[in-house]
């Protein structure tokens, strides 16, 4: 009879080709490598990783997802996780990872010297890599000088129909809320969120960038947004973005009081990682003045290193006082913040 039916042969070939998909792409004799679980999704980060590989020969592998999704994943993977480092774009996530027992302390004196104690975990289980300020972006045409003052002031009826902000599902808003709760208590904060929501010109939607655009087009007068989004708009490849950035200005609130809300992007070494030395080396690299200054230029985040240079755009926004609330507050109060948002009707 026939040896192999052509149909069968095709089937076998397809199956073989398909199985090839499961073979890991990395070479078997892999050189030293680090695996990052990171919330940071910036193109610039990839450039930094390449630079690190060039300098040290250590390859960097990346899993990108939301910070809390990554925490769930780390918990479920337990000791078998391939992750060596956990990076977030928010201090609360770091604190929750620490409290879940997912991180280990680092011992590097270089890091401790470089980063002020307020930007490190008291037990040195995580360290900030960059700072980002959540501020008010306003239209200088429609907002009078002196009209803006504090986050709390946004609850004032004079802002009725003049504010925009994104959904409270977003971690940046949740972190801002934790600092408001810390400063004013839960009850006042709920009332605040409800009043701010009332003052919004439209229900929360879109990204921070969309809020800035809404101010630029004249829909709203003030947006709550992170500064670096403005920097990204200003240097966008799209002319419309650059026009939008030119139409708005930055205001740092609460300068008389506790200061503007500053969140951090940071990293910790995963507890079960057996590459703590390599991971520390990577953190030291990220905290070097060279990389810190480039963060300021490329992503418009503020460097944590005191000695690193700000970018011209950041200089233009000006110096400001930052709220120095402990980052553990961000982690501790996150659930409460979401609950208060729910009650206040801020979607």
């Amino acid at each position, binding site marked *: 009879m026939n040896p192999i039916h052509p149909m069968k042969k095709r089937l076998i070939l397809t199956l073989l080709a398909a199985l090839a998909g499961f073979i890991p792409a990395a070479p078997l004799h892999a050189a030293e490598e680090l695996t*990052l679980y990171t919330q940071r999704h910036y193109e610039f980060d990839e450039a930094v990783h390449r630079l690190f590989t060039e300098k040290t020969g250590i390859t960097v592998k990346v899993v990108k997802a939301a910070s809390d999704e990554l925490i769930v994943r780390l918990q479920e993977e337990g000791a078998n996780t391939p992750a060596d480092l956990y990076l977030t774009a928010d201090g609360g996530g770091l604190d929750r990872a620490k409290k879940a027992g997912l991180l280990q302390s680092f011992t590097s004196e270089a890091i401790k010297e470089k980063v002020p104690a307020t930007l490190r975990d008291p037990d040195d289980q995580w360290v900030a890599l960059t700072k980002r300020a959540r501020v008010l972006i306003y239209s200088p045409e429609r907002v009078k000088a002196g009209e803006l003052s504090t986050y709390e002031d946004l609850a004032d009826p004079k802002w009725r129909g003049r504010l925009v902000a994104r959904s409270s599902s977003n971690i940046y808003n949740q972190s801002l809320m934790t600092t408001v709760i810390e400063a004013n208590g839960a009850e006042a904060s709920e009332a605040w969120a409800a009043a701010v929501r009332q003052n919004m010109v439209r229900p929360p939607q879109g990204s921070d960038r969309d809020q800035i655009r809404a101010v630029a087009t004249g829909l709203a007068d003030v947006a709550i947004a992170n500064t670096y989004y403005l920097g990204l708009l200003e240097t966008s490849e799209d002319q419309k973005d650059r026009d939008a950035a030119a139409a708005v200005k930055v205001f740092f609130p609460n300068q008389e009081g506790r200061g503007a809300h500053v969140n951090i992007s940071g990293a910790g070494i995963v507890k079960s990682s057996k590459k703590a030395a390599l991971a520390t080396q990577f953190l030291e690299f990220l905290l070097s003045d060279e990389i810190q200054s480039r963060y300021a230029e490329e992503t418009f985040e503020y460097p944590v290193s005191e000695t690193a240079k700000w970018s011209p755009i950041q200089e233009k926004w000006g110096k400001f006082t930052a709220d120095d609330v402990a980052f553990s507050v961000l982690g501790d109060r996150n659930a409460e913040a*979401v609950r208060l948002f729910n009650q206040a009707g801020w979607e």
Partner: protein
Amino acid sequence: MASHPQAPALPIVAPAAARRAPRWRWHGDRWGAGVALLTGIIALPLLAILFHLGQESAEWSHLAETVLARYLTNTLILVFGVSLLVLIMGVVPAWLVTTCEFRGRRVLSWALILPLAIPTYIAAFVFYQGPEAAIPMLIQVRMRFGVEAFLLAEQIIRYGLLIVMLAAVLYPYVYLACCSAFSRQSRAVIEAARCLGNSPTRSFLRAALPMARPGIVAGVALVIMEVINDYGAVHFFGVPTLTEGVFRTWFGMGDKVAALRLAGIMMLVVAALLMLEQGLRGRARYVEADAGSIPMKRLPLGGGKAALAFLVCFVPVALGFLFPVGRLVHWAGLHLLSDSGGGFPAGLALVRGFSLALATAVVVTALAALFMYAVRLRECRLRRLLGRIAGMGYATPGAVIAVGVLVVFGTLDRLELPLLPLVSGTLFVIAFAYTVRFFAIPLQLARAGLERIGKPLEEASRLLGHPPLRTFLRVDLPLLRAPLIAAGMLLFVDILKELPLTLILRPANFETLATTAYSLASEARLQACAVPALLIVAVGAIGLLVMNRWLQPPTPHE
């Protein structure tokens, strides 16, 4: 029947033994055990999730008091609005292209399925330009009519656009169902209706539409499932639905149980829809089997009528495909021409994503065919039930499945089974999750294919000395080629489009087109994002056209 007169049926009273109630029969053999085992493995992540449902939840009452009503209202508004719109956008063009002849009909008949290639989250980026563009108009409204009118207008624009957008990319489910229903309807029925003095429109409303109802309902059920499971688009448009509630409660408030209860509500809604759909499809088969298969003679349209028909069919394609693709091409062009353009962020990682999707699609399709074959080998209630359970992942949000899979592998890890480290944390985990999520697709198509082949061929093979497995390989598999290629293609496209599950489970340095597009979009780099988005659309469109070709009923004796 022969010519002799029919004998009256003799009333025969069955002995008591014959009357006993039909019993559940477990045909305990290797095939049955295989079906049970595979169902068990696939259902494991879902069970792990259901296990949590009974536990105490700190936030449930808080959710019920504050946001649950809004999630439900929003979900229902979308479900209702989108269903209504897909009915119009799906049924009317389907009727026109199957029963009328006009210029452009052939091209439109397949172009009408293309919007299915556009994932909702990508359509959302494009359509969100709408509310943006409406801002100057809204400002005018506010200045002239005050804040209340403005807020109302803003809501209408946003909800309206979201509904239009979802309908524009989802209506092909209804369109496809209608096309197959209309083209299978007996020409005689429609012609009889027209002979009885009904106009074409009346015969459509009175005869064709009621007959196609099961198919239409099945299509709408699929649309509703997609709407309920959608995450990206509703988030972008600021219309929080139950799915957003699941994410927010789980990851923002850290209350797994409350989040899973929300997911449970969704699963219930969708499961009810699935059952409805299955019930209706069961009867649909009967209707189709009865109808003749002579293709309908198309009514030629001329002049104004032809132009109108063309327009009616063209609008859905324009909204659901040409407009978004046009925008994406424009952005991608800008990106590639700009200084920073050209570089494609995740080349190698993407290749892995691609080959994984392909591999999973091939393996899972083959597995589904074998599974369905085993279910049908000795079809009993238990096996049918198992088949249904194995397909339940389709009714579950991707993120929930992802966490279920993490829980399962986490538990297995802690048991420290010897071989587990080989699979845990590898591509196998995510491939398994895709299997759980999408197993229903190849299962359905394999079932339809096997039903078309029919039992006699299998029985003939068995009697000619070939045991079940050999029969499957030598008879069913070659004959299932068309439906399996279609299923594999659909699966491949769905895996490439899948986002929430992939984001949570993907291994290091692993990107799919969807995750690449998503991370660029979350950096709000719309122009750069357009490149992978266009690739998804291109792959999806090719996949759909291939599938469409393979699913065409073969011309007899071709």
